[in-house]
């Protein structure tokens, strides 16, 4: 079991959840592989589906202007959705500076 804290920007705090909350990710039985960002998003797809589709599209691609950080590290530099998420980590969601 991995416990992750998800921190959302104000713009998403209305997408069916509050701004900061915990997510429990159960390890698949018999597997010892580390929990990843994709695993966290898979859980959100079940528990917070509106929020999850704000973060990635239906092919599983994290949206272009969504930045995800695991304990302060941008996942684009640490393996993308395959980035490991240790127990007790924080997954921070930050919108890019974009638009006009």
């Amino acid at each position, binding site marked *: 079991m991995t416990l992750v804290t998800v921190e959302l920007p104000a713009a998403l705090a209305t997408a069916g959840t509050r701004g900061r909350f915990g997510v429990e990710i159960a390890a698949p039985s018999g597997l010892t592989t580390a929990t990843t960002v994709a695993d966290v998003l898979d859980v959100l797809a079940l528990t917070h*589906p509106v929020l999850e*589709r704000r973060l990635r*599209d*239906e*092919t599983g691609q994290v*949206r272009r202007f969504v930045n995800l950080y695991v304990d302060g590290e941008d996942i684009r530099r640490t393996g993308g959705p395959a980035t490991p998420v240790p127990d007790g980590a924080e997954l921070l969601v930050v*919108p890019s500076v974009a*638009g006009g």
Partner: protein
Amino acid sequence: MTQILLAVGTDKGLFLGTSADRTTWSWSGPHLPMARVAAIGLDTRRSPLRILTGGRHEHWGPVVMHSDDLGRTWVEEERAALRFPDSADAAVAQVWQLQPGPPERPDEVWAGVEPAALFRSDDGGASFGLVRGLWDHPHRPTWMPGFGGLCLHTVLPHPEDPDEVLVGISTGGVYRTADGGATWAPSNTGIEARFQPDRYPEYGQCVHKVTRDSAEPSRLFLQNHGGVFTSTDDGNTWHLATDGLPADFGFGLVAHPFRAGTAFLFPLQADAHRLPPEGKARVYRTDDGGDTWVESGTGLPDSGFYSVVLRDAMAVDGVGSLDQPDQLGIYFGTRSGEVWGSTDEGRRWSRVTEHLPDVLCVRATVVPDGQR
């Protein structure tokens, strides 16, 4: 007392106007703030009327919502109303069209999206399924995106045959089904493609908008990426119909709500010069099925107008009100955030509102009795 609903989708949300006389308007919004609302469907088959919207947040992707209380509250389904199935390996980038089906199928709603695909809902827009017959068409991998993306932007169910549907794709051209969406065939005979060596291909035209004649549904009007075309045989064949127009490029096009052979469009100078000719805001009108077009009305800016009317930014209310010919409105919105309207079939125009974000989509309807 009649109430009119005017829905204006913009680059940064949806604005809703209501009016008893089409002259004085009350506005609410922005609804769906910061969403690029390119698709609006006003479903008057339901009671109360349902407002369907398709938007896209720059950061958070597409969003489909509906309201059954004229925008006071909005519903977004917990499970995404509109998404590609896993087997399609594609993601909805933008909803371009939300079109209620024919009256005898009151729960049918069609959706056109980018990348070019058609979806159908059988529950009033709460959930949509991909129309595989078009998605699996062998032509689809060869469709090419226009400047606005590879989008299916027009869906026209036939009012007399619910299994017959016409769609417009940029750039794929016109496709039709006669069996409710199971099989599709291109239907572009006579439509020109000036941007490639073969000027009259089977498909691949950059069709900008198609609208169906309200009184004679086998008649269609089409604004192409160069050229205006009409069909009198449900889209089997198309004929150039530009006599009287100052230019043959443009996007905005709408049929008169009840007068046969009558339509309105907003010409732009050319592909390479996408501005109104001579800096004049001008709507052109045909009363003879596209054989001739004339400038429609007064009241629009005569100079210094350099804005654009996009493909879904012209609308009418009063469909079917032939017995009350003074009860209709014609509207268009501009990328400079204005909405103009006419209450006398396009003879005089006045500004309905201004200072909105870029207008992408306009829809209007008479609100049925019992819902005010």
